[in-house]
């Protein structure tokens, strides 16, 4: 690791100003992904701007939305009474990610910005278009058991590794970004990108912007939601497939369904067709199976990850079963 310069700042404005001064600088918050990547030589910023002292740690209800500051830690959010009561799905998704130690420093903004866990991305001796444009994709015909089945491109089949982001997409979150010209707000489902021809870009954050907060509308899903993460060991592992499921039920009728999947695409994958199908239907395993089937249109395996074509719909069904039962 080069001996980078290190600066501290206490305001979002000065942080942005510092960022713009030096092209090869990066923000550091929790650092749990960035320092890892720097140690592996995947990224080598010359300047780190420590934004941990910028006051963006709020978790509060404002009107009909819950606002969560970009620097709130994953554990602060997961354990917050407001989140547990109103948005348990988010709390569970956070608890399913990483470890207690990592969640204590990893932030909401950092979680959104984390890079893929693809082994080819991490090994600087391997081809990876995401790390080095034009070098090829090692996973396409290589070890792709962990990789995407939706929205892939011939440049990159990596998946976004976050659990939190899957829940945020399911919960209709918005994200607020601060740039030189002030704030802009976008739907969180549009924050991350598909790989397309530019796999080096994970998301739509502009180089001169920072994430300041997410806003999540209140909902009626708290009674019937579940985050189901299928992985190779019981904890502290990235998802093979995960599903965030929330149901608004009246008797056994689905008033609305919220569904998103992780471990299957370059971004958290919202299951819009399944949501539309389930709306107004009875909450039965048959309908869940039909919704799962609809979710799998255009799915494509690359060899070692073909099992996800079966695991993904099964996980959708089981997540819906568990969400229905939860109360």
């Amino acid at each position, binding site marked *: 690791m080069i001996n980078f310069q290190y600066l501290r700042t206490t305001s979002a404005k000065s942080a942005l100003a510092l960022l713009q001064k030096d092209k090869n600088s990066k923000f550091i918050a929790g650092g749990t992904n960035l320092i890892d990547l720097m140690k592996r*030589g995947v990224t080598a910023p010359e300047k780190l701007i420590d934004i941990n002292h910028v006051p963006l740690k709020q978790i509060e209800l404002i009107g009909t939305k819950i606002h969560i500051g970009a620097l709130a830690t994953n554990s602060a959010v997961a354990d917050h009474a407001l989140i547990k009561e109103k948005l348990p799905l988010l709390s569970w998704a956070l608890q399913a990610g990483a470890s207690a130690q990592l969640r204590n420093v990893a932030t909401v903004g950092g979680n959104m910005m984390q890079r893929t866990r693809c082994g080819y991305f991490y090994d600087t*001796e391997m081809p990876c278009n995401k790390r080095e444009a034009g070098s090829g994709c090692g996973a396409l015909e290589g*070890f792709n058991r962990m990789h995407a089945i939706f929205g892939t491109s011939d440049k990159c089949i990596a998946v976004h590794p976050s659990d939190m982001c899957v829940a945020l997409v399911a919960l209709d979150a918005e994200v607020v970004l601060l740039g030189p010209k002030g704030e802009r707000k976008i739907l969180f489902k549009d924050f991350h990108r598909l790989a397309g021809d530019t796999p080096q870009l994970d998301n739509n954050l502009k180089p001169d912007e920072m994430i300041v907060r997410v806003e999540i509308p209140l909902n009626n899903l708290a009674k019937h939601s579940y985050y189901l993460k299928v992985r190779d060991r*019981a*904890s502290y592992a990235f998802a093979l497939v995960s599903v965030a499921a929330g149901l608004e039920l009246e008797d056994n009728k689905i008033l609305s369904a919220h569904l998103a999947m992780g471990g299957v695409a370059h971004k958290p994958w919202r299951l819009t067709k399944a949501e539309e199908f389930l709306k107004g239907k009875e909450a039965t395993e048959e309908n869940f199976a039909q919704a799962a089937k609809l979710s799998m249109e255009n799915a494509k395996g690359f060899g070692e990850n073909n*099992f996800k074509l079966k695991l993904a719909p099964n996980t959708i069904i*089981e997540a819906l079963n568990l969400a229905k039962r939860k109360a």
Partner: protein
Amino acid sequence: MENRILKDENDRVDGFLKVTGGAKYFAEYELPGLTYGVLVTSTITKGKITSLDTKAAEKAPGVIAVLSHLNKPSAPAYEQEGGSQMKIFYTDKIFYNGQPIAIVVANTFERATYAASLVKTSYAKEDFNTNLDKAIKDPKAKKLQGQPDYKRGVENAYKTAEIKIEQQYILPIETHNPMELHGIIADWRPANKVTVYAKTQGVKATQGTIANVFKIPIENIQVNSEFVGGGFGMGLKTWPLEIATVMASKHVGKPVKLVITRMQMFTMVGNRPTAIQKVGLGATKDGKLTGITHTAFGESATYENFTEGVVNMAKFMYQCDNVNTSYTIVPVDLGVPIWMRGPGEATGAFALESAIDEMAHELDMDPLDFRIKNDPEMDQQKNKPFSSKNIKEAYKLGAAKIGWSERKNKPGSLVEGPWQTGYGVSVGVFNANRGKASVKGTLKADGTLLLQSATSDIGPGTGTGMGLIASKLLNIPTNKITFELGDSSLPPAPSQGGSATLSTIGSAVNDVCLALKSTIAELAANSNMDATSNFVDVLKKNKLPSVEITKESQSGKERDNYSMYSFSIHFVQVKVHKLTGVVKVSKIVSVGDSGKIVSPKTARSQMVGGAVGGIGMALTEEAILDHRYGRYINNNFADYHVPVNADVPEIDVIFIDKPDFLVNPMGAKGMGEIALIGFSAAVANAVFNATGKRIRTLPITPDKILA
């Protein structure tokens, strides 16, 4: 090791140091002028280094030296012909991806790490193969006999049996990955005096290797290794990276510390190699085995051969007149493997014990009944009686504890919602080894006993066990006994491996304690004291501050007349999720039939640890190579899945606890290996019982269940 504030005589003697951070592992010694080494490793799999540009690295801040084949210091043994080809820095040849090719030494760890990234290497690449399966199928690929073929009775008798099965079983590369990173501190002083702080399972072995490579007198070399943060076999060898660090210290004239990275732990310090095995079993309709054929292929390296006991168990574990085995090693372009806990026997037991279960199913027999029916009265391979074997009792105890009667012979019978429940059993067996060792015992007038031997402790609790042996013989409380180890200047002892430490060193402790006892008795008699007088009084009366005796101990003729093994039976209950393919081990009962248990608390922990290792082997662990590049894809703790706390249920351990005095004077047999051997088969058998799916390729991950 200090032995403080023990509340219970069975507590670990080094517990206080380990829970306070006071236990010092190799990397934690402060030496004046300490420098830091970082390795540069090859990025190709096979070929030659054509250029190595170290200019930028040498110029980088804090850098003291960069050492490679271009400026190798003298290592006389490497200048001779023969031996392993892996003579570090004495060749420009690349044998595997990730091979150390240079070491950068700087005044801080960060500076050395950065400078290492500045070394630029060019290569002439050659074709390579890192895939065992491909090598087996390639008629031109080299294959070597790993062990003489074995035949008893009719070869391949299973083929003509009334009932037969024939299946192939595959294990991937598994890595030891102890929690402590490998490395060494080397301090080469003038007049060729070398002190090292090592991560080794054998201080005498490390001492000998360094003496041999550099051709310096063995007494010039001091090896210290008091605490070792896990070994599992990795520390049974002095690795090239250790020699590289000794060379670096010689070159810079300062102590050099090298701690390798977790990524490097996958490439340069061995592994449990990939194995592809076939087992054929034949039986009569009423369930008597009539033929066992076990053939195995195991990975080895191109520059050094590696063999292990993959097919041993088939030769004696079951009553069967017709048995044949073969074991072939196949060199591939990877770093050489090293025995990993349970070693080849654990690899072999997965295949054999899965096949036994398959045969029981074929026969529609309870697999436990099938095993009992084919339990041998004597060792048919050696044609000798077993020194002790209480397998049938172990079967009974374990079955009762796990609730075996709940098990249904028809797979998939126990279903609750999406979860299917199954039960599995398997046997493990390993040689009850005993070697030769010396122990020095010093009884002091202050009422304490000091025991010293150049053995090691990678975690099983060597000092605790030795203290308990001595405590009972001399009637001294364990907190008055100190056992010193991990120091090459102490009386010689073999490396800690093969489940032999308690048997080997314990016997020498036994002998030395008995000798001390008779010396005290003699002194008492000479000074007209009662023969049963306390040794403190006797020493004081004789105005002696202490008495010391050194004893060498090894086994006698009993070994020629008996077959000596430790046995284990593993019972597991699993729950398998129908939709997601997730397998949870929900109950474990491991029964140890390993003679008298000397140290109950640490013995239990060994069995528990073996079961946890077994869960990893069965369900989660696989080091994955991209054979196009010869590089590992998941070479880190996030992607190579060692079991975590949430993977492990409560574990019941039962010991038969019957002494076997033919093995050694304590009547105790080793346990480190049997704790693991067979466990993975018990899980696979339970998964079959739960689902009807027979998974013959480890690990049993959700994708395989769903396939």
